[in-house]
Structures are given as structure tokens and as C-alpha cells.
């Protein structure tokens, strides 16, 4: 049996908050920096999404059923595409129409709902599945959680939502001596197959590709093929941010040429084949269960959730946000639900991370704030306004019957 290669790309754009001051609380409930979102999206569309989609489309046309890729596109990103760059949606649709591209399900808002609230988690996954169906006419069958966050418990919930395949990180501390290059399964729900990211090979492309100080620079398709062949498992999961192509690794680094050459080199060799998560899980048996009692992710050296919930600021913000779930559940207010979603984007918590010293480069690259404190203050101001709106809505909701009681009193006077 040929070894499988899963190429999966994550597409996400955060809904950035504007400078939201204390003085704005209760006065202005638009929290977002639309201008920055639009500017950044436009740049990334030109540098990454459009040229890379075209490149992949050309490869699929050239190799037909032999070349496959996988995407997960967050709802937040889709909203921005619809609003600012509809051309990007059209080009993803073209890829979807080839039938060679799998789309994954995830949380619509790229949120940490899986760590907070089962109901909200499910709600967002359903919302995301619907958005993918509406945009691309395909129904996601496999699942990836925000930042590949996974634990035994989360896996159980995901299985409960009807997914049989889930992607996560091949974190060394959970694997021990085991290789990430096999299919595993959830110990609580053995029906859920797990695909683990080969972080070594994935990061060779995503992080090290243009690093001229790296001993293996420059990376060529032939060299990469030899590494994949040397891996002793059955599956090689290359999971990375889609913005790797043209944004994190600039065009001048040769990243596009590398990707253009890779399928040809792999297919000519003949010992590996391209596949997608769902097909891969169908083809390969689970070699065993893997236990993950505490959540893991693909972030930072620790591969845990401390990038979002590692300090007291993040924890307070996270707790205050999800405390609103109960009140919101009483309300059927689409606008509030939408803001609740956008405020849940994990990026907001990521900006508050104080882990600058070990993983500073990555953190600061994506961070619009000078300090985690600024990020926290700004977020809490916006959240405070949001909480006021919920409380107002709940208050009027409760008053409705009271208002009716007044009427008979008036009648009596007559």
C-alpha cells in the first residue's frame, strides 16, 4: 500500500478590534477595525490566496485525481471574503468544483468554545458546516478544531456531532515513542480516527523554508520527497496555515516554485499518493488509541493551550466572555449572537499572551498591539459594552409580561 500524504491548509482572518476606549462604552457598539481588516485581507489575497489557488487549480488540472488538497476556512474569514474580496470565494469555489479538494468543519469563529461550553461549541460547528455548504456546495465530513486543539473529551463531543475523522497535533508529549505517521483513534470513542500533524516536516515548509541559516536551506522538492520516504509510517500529515504561501514565506523565497514542483516529483517516484483526511481515514486502519487527557494544540513549543489561556488576564477575559452564554441563550437576537461570535475569536486572547520570550517571534508577528496589557484593556472595554447590551436585552425581555399586567389596571380605572 502506498504511503498517504495529506496536504491541509488552514485559512483564517481575525476580526480585529478597533481602538475601543472606556469613553466608548455604552455609546458605540461597533467594535471592529474594518479598515485594517480590509487592508490586510487585500494584501494577503494578492500575495497568497489568489495566486496560490490558481497554482493548486493548475496542478489539479495537470494531475487530475492524483493530486488532492484540503482546506479549512473559518467563518470569520469567509465573512471578510464576501465583504471585501469576493474573488477569493470564487477561486475557492473553482477548487471545490474539481472534486479533488476536501473542506473541513471547524468552529465558525475560530473560537475556543470547545474549552468552554459544549452547547456553544456545537452551535458554532453547525454554523460553520452550513457556511461551507452555502459557499462551496460540499458538506464537511472531517473535523479540525481551532488551532488543532484536541483532548479525549473534545474528541468525544466531535464524534457526537457525527464526525468520524479529526485532525490534531502530533505533539511529542502525548506520543512519546510513537510516530505521528499513523492513524490513531480516540480512547472513549474508538470510532473517531485521528490524523496527527507531522510537525517536523510541516514546519520545514511553514517556518524554515526561507531560513538561510537552516542547514537544509534551500529546500527542494527532491530533498523533501526523500525525507517523506524516510519517514517510517503510513501517513504524512502536512498541516499548515495557508498564509505560509506568499505571506509568511515570500514569493521571492521560491515557495511557489517548490509547491509547483512537489506533486510531479512525488508522483514520478510512485511510492506515495496524495489524499485527504476522509479518504485517508477510510484507507488506513487505526494502529491504536492515543490518550490525551489535557488539551493539546499546534501552538508554541508547549503544544498546549497556554498561548490563549496561560495568564490571569486571558483567563479573566475568557471567563467573563463565556459567563454571557446563559443570558444570551434566553435571547433570540442575531446581532448580539454575531458579536458574541466575533468576540470569541481566539486571536483576541492570543494578543494578550505574555509568552513573548520563548515564542516571541510568532506572537509579535501576528499582534497588532504593543503589549498584552493594551490588548487586554481594549478587549475588556469592548466586552464591557457587549455585556451592557446583553443585560439591557435581558431586562426588556423580562419586562414584557410585566407590561401586559399594566393594561388591565388601566381598564379598571375606566
Amino acid at each position, binding site marked *: 500500500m502506498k504511503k498517504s500524504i495529506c496536504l491541509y491548509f488552514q485559512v483564517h482572518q481575525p476580526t480585529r478590534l478597533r481602538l475601543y*476606549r*472606556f*469613553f*466608548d*462604552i*455604552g*455609546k*458605540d457598539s461597533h467594535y471592529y477595525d474594518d479598515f485594517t481588516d480590509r487592508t490586510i485581507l487585500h494584501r494577503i489575497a494578492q500575495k497568497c490566496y489568489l495566486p496560490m489557488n490558481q497554482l493548486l487549480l493548475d496542478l489539479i488540472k495537470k494531475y487530475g485525481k492524483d493530486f488532492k488538497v484540503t482546506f479549512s476556512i473559518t467563518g470569520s474569514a469567509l465573512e471578510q471574503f464576501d465583504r471585501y474580496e469576493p474573488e477569493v470565494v470564487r477561486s475557492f469555489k473553482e477548487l471545490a468544483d474539481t472534486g479533488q479538494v476536501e473542506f473541513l468543519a471547524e468552529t465558525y469563529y475560530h473560537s475556543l468554545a470547545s474549552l468552554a461550553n459544549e452547547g456553544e461549541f456545537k452551535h458554532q460547528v453547525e454554523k460553520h458546516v452550513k457556511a461551507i455548504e452555502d459557499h462551496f456546495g460540499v458538506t464537511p465530513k472531517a473535523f479540525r478544531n481551532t488551532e488543532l486543539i484536541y483532548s479525549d473529551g473534545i474528541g468525544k463531543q466531535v464524534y457526537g456531532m457525527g464526525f468520524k475523522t479529526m485532525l490534531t497535533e502530533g505533539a511529542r508529549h502525548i506520543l512519546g515513542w510513537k510516530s505521528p505517521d499513523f492513524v490513531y483513534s480516540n480512547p472513549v470513542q474508538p470510532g473517531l480516527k485521528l490524523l496527527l500533524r507531522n510537525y517536523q516536516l510541516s514546519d520545514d515548509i511553514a517556518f524554515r523554508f526561507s531560513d538561510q541559516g537552516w542547514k537544509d536551506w534551500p529546500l527542494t522538492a527532491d530533498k523533501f520527497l526523500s525525507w517523506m520516504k524516510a519517514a517510517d509510517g503510513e501517513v504524512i500529515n502536512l498541516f499548515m496555515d495557508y498564509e505560509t504561501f506568499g505571506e509568511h514565506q515570500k514569493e521571492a523565497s521560491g515557495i511557489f516554485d517548490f509547491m509547483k514542483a512537489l506533486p510531479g516529483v512525488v508522483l514520478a517516484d510512485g511510492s506515495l499518493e496524495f489524499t485527504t483526511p476522509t479518504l485517508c481515514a477510510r484507507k488506513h486502519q487505526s494502529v491504536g488509541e492515543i490518550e490525551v487527557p489535557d488539551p493539546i494544540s499546534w501552538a508554541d513549543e508547549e503544544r498546549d493551550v497556554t498561548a490563549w489561556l496561560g*495568564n*490571569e*488576564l486571558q*483567563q*479573566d*477575559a475568557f*471567563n*467573563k466572555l463565556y459567563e454571557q452564554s446563559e443570558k444570551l441563550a434566553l435571547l433570540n437576537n442575531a446581532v448580539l449572537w454575531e458579536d458574541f461570535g466575533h468576540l470569541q475569536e481566539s486571536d483576541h486572547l492570543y494578543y494578550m499572551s505574555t509568552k513573548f520570550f520563548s515564542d516571541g517571534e510568532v506572537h509579535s508577528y501576528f499582534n497588532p498591539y504593543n*503589549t498584552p*496589557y493594551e490588548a*487586554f*484593556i481594549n478587549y*475588556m*472595554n469592548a*466586552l*464591557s*459594552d457587549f*455585556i*451592557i447590551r446583553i443585560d439591557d436585552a435581558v431586562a426588556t425581555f423580562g419586562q414584557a409580561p410585566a407590561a401586559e399586567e399594566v393594561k388591565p389596571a388601566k381598564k379598571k380605572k375606566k
Partner: protein
Amino acid sequence: MRVLMFGWEFPPHIAGGLGTACYGIVKGLVENGVETIFVMPSASGDEDGSVATIINASDVPVMSVASSVDEFLDKVRFVRVGTNMIPYTNPDEFYELVEAEKKQREVSSDKIYGSKYRFSGKYGSNLLEEVARYAMVGGTIAVEHQDEFDVIHAHDWLTYLAGIAAKELTGKPLVVHVHATSFDRGSEDMIDSRVYSIEKRGMEAADKVIAVSDLTRNIVINKYGISPDKVVTVHNAVDFSGRENLQVERGVRDKVVTFLGRITFQKGPEYFIEAAAKVLKRTSGVRFVMAGSGDMMNRCIRHAARLGISDRFHFTGFLRGMDVQKMFALSDVYIMPSVSEPFGISPLEAMRSNVPSIISNQSGAAEVLKYAFKVDFWDVDAMADDIYALLNYPALADFAAKEGYEEVNRLKWNHAAAKMKKVYESVIK
């Protein structure tokens, strides 16, 4: 009566409270029939010249002065500035100043004589050198104008050396005015000994010392060893002329409790956070605001997050200009929990904006404000009680706001200046 006054700044270009206080004093002196020659290191030309003759020390070339003065200046001339001695500026501005000054290296010292020196007049990195040069220029100015004044008045340590030089060269009596001491700027083990020694020398050379509060007077007596009969308390006042209270539409219906000032150890910000958490346990419908910046800000943000009150405890960062007035206008209670505050003008501003104020007993303002609520800075229970009461008992809050407004309007520089005039009279032979 005529006074030669050494200041460091004067409105409209001010970084701290000293310039505002000097302006009030000079205006008050005019009303008491005292003429002032006001010397400052770097005047811009748009200062209010109707209240005093302004002399810009940057315009005056230094003459080779008597050797006795030269000698003591020698000791301080090349002392470099350390950290922790920036008296009034806020940390952001300080950072900008230091960065700016690093770029333009200072002139070498042998060019001092016969030349003009452009003072920055700020509180920057070569502050001690500016203080020394200011003394030399100050001496020169005193000699040039010696027939035009009867007494010398120097404000805070930055100008003490200038005051001493003027006294030694002209023989006129010297009054030094203590607005703040080293002990208000850092904890006792962090005192900058160079600044302390200039302060002490100024107080010792002075014929009388004016302190802005009894609290400060006690520090002058106990920490600087100055004889009690030489030290006189004259409380600060505040000039509200031409100011109208802002009307601001409120975004939040909750009551707002505000702390406004530098977020440093001296201001007691963490006591405020603790008190806020206590209040929030008993009542909702209130928000707390910490306006300002400072070296304890990040620690305070973490503190509030740890107590789980970040959705009700807000930080605004450093506020400028109208935002300060706006913040007062949005406030229902003002709090100044200072650990050590020579006077503290901000509660007066708050009360003038009809905001009832809670201040610590460890502030000079507590000595003059009858209608402010007073607590010990460490007594967070008492602080929480007062906040709760002001939020929940409108009669109390209305009374405190109304009486407080009247009270601060009665605090006039005119009265303070009359006391200063008496001090002058006591030293003029």
C-alpha cells in the same frame, strides 16, 4: 515689595503641577501688592507677562562669578542624572525626553562661561547638569537685577542652587518653597542622595522654608533636620478662573468611581483595586476607572484580572487635555488613596467638577478639605465603605458634591499669597 522668583516651568508649557502652582502664586502675589521677577530655564515667550516679569535663563550669558559660588557649583556640575529623580513628568513623556536628549549630546562644560546655554527646561536625562547651570545663570541674573528685588523665592530642589547663588551674590534673604520632597518620589531606601543633598542644602541656606502642607513640613523638620521655627506651612490653592464644567453625555448608566494620576507606588493604586473588589462583592451597577499611566500599571492590570473584576475595572491610559475634564464629568466618586502626597491638587479638581472625593489622610489636601471623605491609604475596608455609601445614598453624595464645590472655590491663591507675603516680611531686614 519685590521678589525674585526661580521656577522651572510656567504655563502654558507645563509637564507637571509645579508650573500651575507658580502661576497661581504669582497671580496671588500681584493681588497682595507684591511684584515678581520670574526666572525660568526655558521660556517660550507666550507666558502670561501681565502678572510677572519673565526672564528666560536661556537668554542670559553666564559671567565669571565670584569664586565662592563657583566652588560649590564645581561639585555638582558634572553629576550625571540617575533614574528615579524625575519629579513631575509622566513616564511616557519621560521616555520621549530621554530618547530625544540621547540624540543631541550635551555641550562640553568648558563652554559655559561667556556663553548662553539653551536649557530644555524639562525634566530630562541631564537634569542635574541643567540644575547646576541654572544656578550659575541664576546668580548672574540676580546680580544684574539686584536693585529690583527684596527677597528671593525658589521653588523645589531644581531651583534651590539658583536661589543659593543669588543669595550669596546679593546678600538678599532666601525663601525656599517645598512642593515635594525626595520622600514623596520614592520609598525611603530608594532616595537619590544627590537630590536629597541639594534639597537639604537649599533648606539650610534658606532664611525661611515654606511647605505645602503640615505633612510636608514634618518631613522637612524630621528628615532634613530643619529647625521647626524656620518652616511655615502655606497650603496650596487652585485657580479655576475661566473654567466651565463640561457636560458630557454618559455612555454607561453605571456609577463610575475614578482614580486619576500616575500609577506609581506613591499613589496607592493597589489599595483602590482592593477596595473596588470589596465594593463589587456587595453591589453591581458600578464601574471603576484607573486613568493614567506609570510603572505600576501592568501590575495593576494583572491584579484586577486576578480578582476577576476586569469587566468592571477599566484602564484608560494617560489622559491629556480635555480628556481629563471629560473623565471628571463622567465620575460619581473620585478617589486619591495616596501613600504619600505633599498636597494633591486632583481632588480639588474633582470637587470643582461636583464629584465627591475620597482622599487618604496621608495627603496634604486632607488638611484643608473638610468635605472630602478621609481614610488611611491602607484601610481598604473604610475606602470600600465610603465608596458604597456615596454610590447608594444620594443625599450623602449630593451634600458632599455641593459642599465640596463651595469649599474648593473658597481656596484662593490670594489667601496663600498673603501668607507668603508675611513670610517675606519676616526675613527682610
